[in-house]
């Protein structure tokens, strides 16, 4: 996290670096890989494959990956799918070919089904792989020993539920809410919605006025919120959003109506602007997954398996498919969270592989 902050303050916005960054990057990368490929002889290349670098969540993930690579002294490569499963799989195959299989992969598959071809490609090439968030229910690490090391997920159900409850609390326990969902076919979107539904069932005084999907897209979220303000007007007492990006957009729609701070919004992901919104009293809460940990520790688990620190096939199943720990951030702990995780860079112990295991993943 610190990494990003410094980048913004010192480096990336510096015009000189910006200009040299774009103009020279092509040349620099061409010149740069020579020594890197030499270095790759010594240590396996560590690779993160994520959706995109255009959202804060995955950008922080990437920073975690960079931090781990530095710690391990290994070459670091980032791949992005840009939402295209085919590209995601193809890029992974390309990097496997380039490294000759001497690598560790930490991947957030674009969609659950992508995990299977990715794992199969890794297994065939002898690449240690850790998947996160998305995979088919019937794909298990222990069926692909030893290369499929672990799958890490965060149960969206408790997160969605906790946020709904934080939202209801801030609303005063009753009234109508509207909800913004993620891409309908994403596991996290489905789970978070399920958590919302559970909270609604437990709070009969709160009414779900409408649920719409905004596909994780802030623009769509803003449009939808505007239309809701017409349709339901003052009946809206709270807005639940399946991630922070959409929640922040809904907040801006409220702000345009002078309703920011009066109608609470909840998000999930724990990005900086969302935490700041909690501090400003406009957000009811968010759940921080700590993508820095995901990007760094995912690689670390794979790396340690590859370098022989542990044998995946001998690990218990709760180390092979487990839920990580998400931090619920609300008014009460927002300042503390902000100080420890956003202003300061979190210090991770990359050898504490299983410190955040919160139980084996349950299906159904």
């Amino acid at each position, binding site marked *: 996290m610190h990494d*990003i902050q410094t980048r913004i303050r010192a480096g990336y916005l510096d015009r000189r670096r910006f200009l040299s960054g774009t103009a020279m990057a092509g040349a620099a990368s061409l010149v740069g890989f020579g020594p890197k490929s030499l270095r790759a002889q010594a240590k396996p290349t560590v690779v993160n494959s994520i959706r995109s670098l255009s959202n804060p969540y995955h950008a922080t993930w990437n920073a975690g990956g960079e931090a781990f690579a530095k710690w391990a002294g290994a070459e670091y490569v980032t791949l992005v799918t840009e939402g295209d499963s085919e590209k995601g799989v193809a890029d992974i195959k390309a990097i496997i070919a380039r490294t000759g299989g001497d690598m560790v992969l930490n991947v957030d598959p674009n969609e659950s089904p992508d995990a299977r071809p990715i794992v199969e490609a890794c297994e065939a090439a002898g690449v240690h792989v850790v998947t996160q968030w998305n995979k088919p229910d019937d794909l298990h690490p222990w069926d692909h020993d030893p290369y499929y090391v672990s799958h890490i997920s965060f149960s969206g159900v408790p997160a969605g539920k906790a946020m709904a409850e934080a939202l209801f609390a801030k609303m005063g326990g009753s009234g109508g809410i509207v909800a913004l969902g993620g891409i309908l076919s994403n596991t996290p979107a489905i789970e978070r919605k399920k958590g919302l539904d559970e909270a609604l069932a437990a709070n009969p005084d709160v009414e779900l006025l409408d649920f719409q999907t905004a596909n994780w897209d802030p623009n769509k979220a803003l449009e*939808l919120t505007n239309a809701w303000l017409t349709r339901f007007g003052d009946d809206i007492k709270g807005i639940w959003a399946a991630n922070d990006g959409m929640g922040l957009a809904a907040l801006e729609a409220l702000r345009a109506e002078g309703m920011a701070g009066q109608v609470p919004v909840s998000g999930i992901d724990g990005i900086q602007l969302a935490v700041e919104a909690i501090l400003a009293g406009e957000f009811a809460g968010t759940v921080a997954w700590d993508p820095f940990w995901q990007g760094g520790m995912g690689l670390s688990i794979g790396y340690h398996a590859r370098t022989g620190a542990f044998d995946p096939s001998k690990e218990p199943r709760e180390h092979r498919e487990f839920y990580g720990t998400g931090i619920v951030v609300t008014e009460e702990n927002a300042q503390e969270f902000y100080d420890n995780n956003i202003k300061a860079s979190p210090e991770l112990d990359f050898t504490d592989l299983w410190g955040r295991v919160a139980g084996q993943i349950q299906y159904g």
Partner: protein
Amino acid sequence: MAEAATIGDGRAAGWKKLRRRLAPWAPLLVLLALCIAIALVNGRFVSLRNFARIADAASIPLVLGLGVTFVILMGSIDLSMEGVVAFAAIILCLLVANGANANDFGLLGALAVLVIGAAMGFANGIVHVGLQIPSFMVTLGMWFVGIGIGNAILGGIQVRVNDPLIRALALEQFLGLKFQVWLALGALAVAWVVQEHTRLGRYIFAIGGGEDLARLSGIRTGLVRIATFTMAGVFYALAGIMAAAQQGSAFALIGGGRLFTAITAVVVGGTALWGGQGGVLNTLIGVLIVVVLANGMVLMGVSPYVQQIVQGLLIIAAVALSVDRMRAKLVK
């Protein structure tokens, strides 16, 4: 030229003439019918506040639509808007008071962003004309380049806009409408003047009507093309400023999903994709149709699954009604 053979033989029959007279008004009629239908289902549609919100929601698509209208009038296409919007919004955020650095250039920053938009449009035009590459491809490339540079600058983070003047666009009102609505109307007025009262506007129509003939008339078509793409870039950059103001922050995907909405609006408004017919007022109607439709579907509580289906069918219906079949001999 294509019509010469029939025209020489006499006049079109009376009803065809009537149909031809009515066709330009079809988009407006569609819009009215749509409004009435929605109002019948949900009375809340008809309220000053909702109209203000529709105006609000229409302002960014309108500004984008204005830019691309000129390009489409030439018979070309511009897919770069999402890239330009993202890049413009990001640069704006970094130049005005923001949450990431100490800059505070205010309006000067906004002006610089317009210049950057112009530069990106100019780059589109010069590559398209200079290398004779289809605009589809050039602007597709610029789309990727714009978002790519945006990513490179931000590294994925979201930057808050703190400049009160910029934020006022989305937050402050004048006569019941947000400043950004007035800004969009101003852009419409400028676009209309360019279209109706300047040589550039006339030459754009001339190129759309027949590029080789326009060239024979001494029009430097290459220059006009470059100028048009440049102008479009300025409109996109303006939309980028408005988007940053509305979202209160900038991020690389701030242009997401705006391209097809804008082009759909332009075509639904009655501007022909093969060029030469239509104009910015058509785009205004088209944007309103698209925005009212989206607003109406939420008001009527249409299921999100079904929304895309309804939208698709209604767009087909709207365009089918407004296609001027007398003139549109070739539909591509």
